[in-house]
């Protein structure tokens, strides 16, 4: 005893599609400690954003995440529209919601496939990704792109979903519902999948609160957090849907939440396209000439959880400061709770179960003195500053409500 083996997961490893390093310290097959190193993917998005105009930032933030490429523009639009104090047309709201929910479907299908692959169940992998394909085709029809849709702008959307395209969407939705049925049946009723995922990587309610985990990770542990309900935006308050939760907090519960959420997404899209048919075509954006000075917060529920954008405007045509927090930022920290004490086989599955996205979440902060070029403010001071700022924001949000 006492001698620990280091099992490295990464920087290049088939478990993760991005480079990052998890160090699993193992005693036999049991993981006794976990450390991770990220930073292989840092791109300086926040700094880049300050050098771009508001219109260009949309294309930049769209590329933060390749899979949930609409959630970041969504949150950024919410933030900038809060500064500008505008209310976008209803038709634009519905179109934004359709795009957001289609993205949730394809992202969850992608996760189900990857989870199957991690379990060694490659048939589920191939099937889920085959079912994801029509969703991408639908995107191509609506937006012109299979991914990175470039649909959002300040004050609305760039393209209308013309009414003659709606029957095709409706037809596809009914097909997708059947396919999700099939997939859900295959996953939920398989005793071997139960044996492999139930009770694995359990996160209790308290763990979720301690680590401030978000999205399906939190909902699988019985916490009904969903920005679409908590801080309604776009057309979410206008349609009927419910937040899916599960109580167990294990990998199976996370899969269950994601699978059932797809049904909700399909239902939201159906309601949105029904509403779109009744609205006048073409009325999809406002003309906004300038963004006044001020601060704005935008939140959106990405497939993986809350995306938070904080924008400071000084009245010029580009953000003076743009802070982004992706959902994986808090979800990754839960690995300490879910992996320690598990076997390697379970730990790797728990790592994948939160659907982490590393390149979205990698940030770096450094403060330099403008006159001398010296680096000032260390990590502790920065954390202190951000805590104070968070307190202020919380007060102002509470004031609004």
């Amino acid at each position, binding site marked *: 005893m006492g001698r620990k*083996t*280091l099992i490295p997961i990464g920087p290049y490893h088939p478990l993760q599609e991005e480079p990052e390093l998890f160090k699993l310290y193992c005693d036999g*097959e049991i993981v006794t400690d976990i450390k991770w190193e990220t930073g292989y993917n840092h791109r300086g998005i926040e700094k880049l954003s300050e050098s771009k105009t508001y219109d260009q930032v949309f294309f930049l933030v769209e590329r933060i995440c390749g899979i949930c490429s609409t959630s970041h523009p969504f949150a950024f639009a919410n933030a900038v529209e809060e500064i500008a104090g505008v209310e976008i047309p209803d038709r634009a709201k519905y179109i934004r919601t359709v795009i957001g929910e289609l993205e949730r479907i394809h992202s969850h299908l992608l996760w189900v496939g990857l989870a199957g692959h991690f379990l*060694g169940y490659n048939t*589920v992998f191939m099937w889920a990704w085959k079912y994801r394909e029509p969703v991408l085709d639908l995107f191509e029809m609506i937006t012109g792109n299979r991914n990175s849709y470039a649909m959002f702008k300040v004050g609305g959307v760039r393209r209308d979903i013309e009414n003659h395209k709606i029957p095709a969407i409706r037809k596809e939705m009914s097909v997708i519902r059947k396919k999700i049925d099939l997939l859900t049946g295959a996953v939920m009723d398989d005793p071997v999948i139960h044996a*492999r995922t139930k009770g694995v990587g359990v996160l209790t309610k308290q763990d979720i609160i301690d680590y401030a985990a978000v999205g399906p990770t939190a909902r699988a542990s019985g916490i009904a957090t969903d920005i679409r309900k908590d801080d309604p935006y776009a057309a979410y308050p206008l349609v009927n849907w419910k937040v899916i939760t599960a109580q167990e907090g294990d990998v199976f519960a996370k899969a269950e939440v994601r699978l059932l959420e797809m049904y909700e997404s399909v239902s939201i899209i159906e309601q949105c396209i029904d509403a779109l048919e009744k609205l006048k075509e073409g009325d999809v954006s406002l003309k906004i000439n300038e963004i006044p000075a001020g601060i704005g917060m935008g939140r959106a529920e990405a497939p993986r959880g809350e995306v938070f954008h904080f924008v400071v405007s000084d009245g010029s045509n580009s953000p003076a400061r743009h802070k982004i927090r992706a959902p994986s930022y808090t979800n990754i920290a839960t690995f300490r709770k879910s992996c320690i004490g598990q076997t*390697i086989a379970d730990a*790797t599955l728990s790592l994948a179960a939160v659907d982490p996205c590393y390149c979205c979440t990698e940030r770096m902060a450094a403060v330099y003195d403008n006159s001398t070029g010296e680096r000032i403010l260390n990590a502790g001071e920065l954390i202190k500053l951000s805590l104070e700022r968070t307190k202020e924001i919380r007060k102002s949000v509470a004031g609004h409500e």
Partner: protein
Amino acid sequence: MAVSLFYFFVYPGLLFMAVTGGLLSWYDRKITARVQFRKGPPLLQPFWDFLKLMLVKETILPRQGSRFVFLLAPVLALFGATMAGLFILLPLFNIETGFKGDIIVIFYLLTLPSFSYIIGSLASGNPIAAVGASREMKLIISYELTFLLVVAAVIMKSGQEFDLNSIIAVQQADKPFIGSISGVLLFIAGLFCIQAKLGLVPFDMSEAEAELASGIYIEYSGPPYAMIRLAKYIMLFILPAFIVALLMNGMTGGIGVLWLILKILALVLLVTLIRNTNPRLKIKQASSFFLIWMNLLVIIAIVLNAFGL
């Protein structure tokens, strides 16, 4: 001597088994692809894979660990698989009768590939390979008992015949062992054993791609890995052939060749379908699966056999 060498290297030895195994590997991959809505590889793909590894790819040796043992292991695996195949196929194809007790020799030789993978991976000094090796060891301990019980039950059914030739002869004189309830139970247990021996899902935890990145084979590259692949092709052929010899009355002359081919294809089909409709088990679950459930199944089969069912 010359005849023995011909047996070992050409027919039914290395060359024949490698070609048949490669074709079966293509069959397995093609079925997998069709199940997964994919197109699948062309017929000669397994051979191109082998040739690429053999001729094109470089051999990278781990800096730590024992190079001699590391390089010996693939040779040993290939030798074990070929020898076992020889002892199975000679009686099965009615070429030679074998000797009394050859079934025990086959049983030992069939574990040789797994053992050589273990020593090879431990010699590489890679911690991931070590985890894979420990899983493979646990897996062997689990399924070998079941496999031995299956062989023992077949020996009982044949009236204490300890050589494969006589076991086949007993079946051909009466009826195949699988035609009884106990035979069916033995067939199920045997099928899962060969699944584990082949290291396919749900029993591929020793190479578990998403966890251990190929585990026991992680350090192998180039020609040594080509040999491992070849040993795997051969195992994919001879293990179903062994089951056919034990339980499904082997091969009769003439049209029987066609039947033999169909039986082996059907067995590989079952193996492929099992691997495509299941996730990977944890090593603990696999152990209890074999040590409790499969052993129970075989013991029930032995009891039923005592009652003549």
